[in-house]
């Protein structure tokens, strides 16, 4: 296959980027999209040109590190991660436009690499159950209905790639945040901190500069792990019910 690639090149966060065009005629339909870029890069290095930087790691569709906005869609034409996208999804002679994730909360680091540490900070705000190592009950002490465990697993399958943000015209992170909120809201282990968790995570999400959700469902359509928009509905419900019912208790001082 022979392809024309229009790739976003940007030296670093402080410099202005631009599209550069490359003709790539060593493409096999069995290559993954990232392997296609590997081959391009190998050719660039041999010519003494700096290779295109892009994030990737596991190449199994699970680590969430790869990204790329391909022909106007996060992770390209299929509902999968870029590393699992293969060139058989493209036509010989096609022009492919490759951009980084576009969102104010995901600043460009270099070329196609963006900084997604905002996601980490949202998780740090409350995406956990406050248990220390040791001193926990037996795994079977609290039964969890199978369908609840399954639904929690559906939400927990999120890989934190950020495609939902890239797909959204508002650059909203609601699908990502709601997946984590849902996992813990569903499971019995998440109950003690249920209300504080959703409040803190939503507050951090807003702090990071992600937009609001206007229910266009682009996130759900593009999510490589099929995270459902019903999670957003659940998060909204969790959030409002917490706003109405949550209260603080003033703790009186020490023991003896």
């Amino acid at each position: 296959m022979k392809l024309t690639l229009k790739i976003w090149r940007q030296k670093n966060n402080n410099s202005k980027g631009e599209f550069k065009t490359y003709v790539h005629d060593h493409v096999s339909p069995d290559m993954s999209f990232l392997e296609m870029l590997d081959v391009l890069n190998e050719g660039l290095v041999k010519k003494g040109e700096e290779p295109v930087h892009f994030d990737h790691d596991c190449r199994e569709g699970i680590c969430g590190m790869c990204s790329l906005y391909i022909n106007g869609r996060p992770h390209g034409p299929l509902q999968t991660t870029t590393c699992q996208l293969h060139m058989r999804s493209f036509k010989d002679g096609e022009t492919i436009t490759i951009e980084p994730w576009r969102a104010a909360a995901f600043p460009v680091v270099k070329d196609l690499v963006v900084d997604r540490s905002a996601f980490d900070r949202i998780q740090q705000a409350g995406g956990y159950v406050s248990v220390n190592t040791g001193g926990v009950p037996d795994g079977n002490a609290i039964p969890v209905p199978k369908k609840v465990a399954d639904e929690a697993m559906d939400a927990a399958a999120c890989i934190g790639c950020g495609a939902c943000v890239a797909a959204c015209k508002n650059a909203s992170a609601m699908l990502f945040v709601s997946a984590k909120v849902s996992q813990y809201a569903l499971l019995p282990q998440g109950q003690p901190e249920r209300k504080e968790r959703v409040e803190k995570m939503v507050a951090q999400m807003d702090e990071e500069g992600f937009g609001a959700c206007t229910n266009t469902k682009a996130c759900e359509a593009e999510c490589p792990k099929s995270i459902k928009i019903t999670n957003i509905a659940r998060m909204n419900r969790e959030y409002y019910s917490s706003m109405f019912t949550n209260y603080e208790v003033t703790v009186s001082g020490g023991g003896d």
Partner: protein
Amino acid sequence: MALDSKIPEGSLAEKWSKHKFNLKLVNPANKRKYDVIVVGTGLAGASAAASLGELGYNVKAFCFQDSPRRAHSIAAQGGINAAKNYQNDGDSVYRLFYDTIKGGDYRAREANVHRLAEVSVNIIDQCVAQGVPFAREYGGTLANRSFGGAQVSRTFYARGQTGQQLLLGAYSALNRQIANGKVKMYNRTEMLDVVVVDGKARGIVTRDLVTGKIESHSAHAVLLCTGGYGNVFFLSTNAKGSNVTAAWRAHKKGAFFANPCFTQIHPTCIPVSGDHQSKLTLMSESLRNDGRVWVPREAKKGLKAKDAASIPEADRDYFLERKYPSFGNLVPRDVASRNAKYVCDEGRGVGATGLAVFLDFADAIKRDGRAVIEAKYGNLFDMYKQITGDDPYTMPMMIYPAVHYTMGGLWVDYNLMTTVPGLYALGECNFSDHGANRLGASALMQGLADGYFVIPYTLGDYLATIGWKDKVDINHPAFAESIKSVTDRQEKLLSIKGKKTVDQLHRELGLTMWEYCGMSRSESGLKKAKQIIQDIKKEFWTNVNVLGSGNELNMELEKANRVADFIELGELMVDDALNRTESCGGHFREESQMDGEALRNDKDFFYVSAWEYKGEGEQQALHKDPLVYEFVKPSQRSYK
């Protein structure tokens, strides 16, 4: 120097509990006076950093990825073993211990493995409490399955994404400590050296991968949780970034490297499709619970999966079921891998390259219905279809063995301390628990055992012994020296400006390792490999082309740094394989066999090889750490 494994006295079941009592404790009020560095944030690193932060130590954690959640533990599919005996099918701590020792072909330490089996039950409880959504039965209890060679159902799982869910659990605990200010996290930061002063590990030197800044970090102890070195083969199931650099630099600073030639070949990977191949994708071996492995009785060159149905039942060779009737398709990984290689070597392999065997679900779908198979393996089937374009619901999968895990690693004692005091190795990075071959669903168990339940105890003993005043500041000249050597090496890499890319040289190394130091090894092949690797090393340092500069995000430079270390490691692996003239675990030594099956040699090789770095270009020194078996009598493995 004599190696002291520090195995405690006493009966097997009492060793760990007695040892815990004998370990010194750090006073709760003093814990905040100690700094600990954790390198790597996979299962071992994230769980260690979180647990140590909870105890009150000041932790600095480092990962080269953009987030700790990306660590390659995330890709483990199948499950995690634990001796819960929830299924009432005869499991026990002793049985898990025994299976692991036997599965490791009697090359692991008894005491370490028993401890692993003991704490396995705590791991499940811990993960459940964190909100890990394990698979459940309708009554709400945890579900189990039998996995890779086990005759009891002791494997806990979260669909085909168990590693992901366990890692996200550990990541959540880590996040909580980051928010609490007890862990300071450094993303996109790679460790390039360990700093040793007065014989103790005092800190590390790192490179900020975005700015290129090279920095010093000092601490009372350094924990390496940096995973395995399977990428020495270029093609493996490891993530592209997985590397040996941290462990190798530690090795050069005095940490012995144990059993480097012990690598695990996983039987169920998607076969290679062409020269562009950048990595191999594992299909969980849980698939072997329902899939039947076969090739045609007579060679059928280029047989495609979609034409498999045309081969009548009588003309199929279900070779694992035929040769190993009691274990069938569930034989251990090495046996399954080696037999797949044999049938392909006989020319009976399938697919375009002839380097593949079928894994067929037709009978399982007929027996249980498509819905049941979909519920068990849906995501794996989807992934397979995505990569190959073939639909495993209507035709068999094609699989072939690939490098998956490395049992070798930094030598550690019972406390997980390397030969450098204050320097620890946890998880896949160390060598201790899997012997010559790891059982399925045991890697996750070991990573979390080390991080959650071993290091919080054993590290305290060291810290209490040295005291909080025994720390070296980053202004110590040893840090400056280390920064200089790291910087010099980087400048050298950037100045060669040769003709070959880093990937080209890495591929050459990988092919050599796979050919001569993979599933099957011989003296002549290994000697040849040693020469080739030395040539690759020479060429690398004179003809590699690394563009760009050191003070920016430069992924070619990162790769070059790692590949340079892989080349040196490759040579040590070959040395180790040359020394071990026995077949054990996944390592078939052609000179040591009986009736075509691997022949172990306990008389001459009942030891851990621990290699000591002797300087650039020098032959490394072999130290033998004897394996002492007090409780299990080693026998030749038989799965017939």
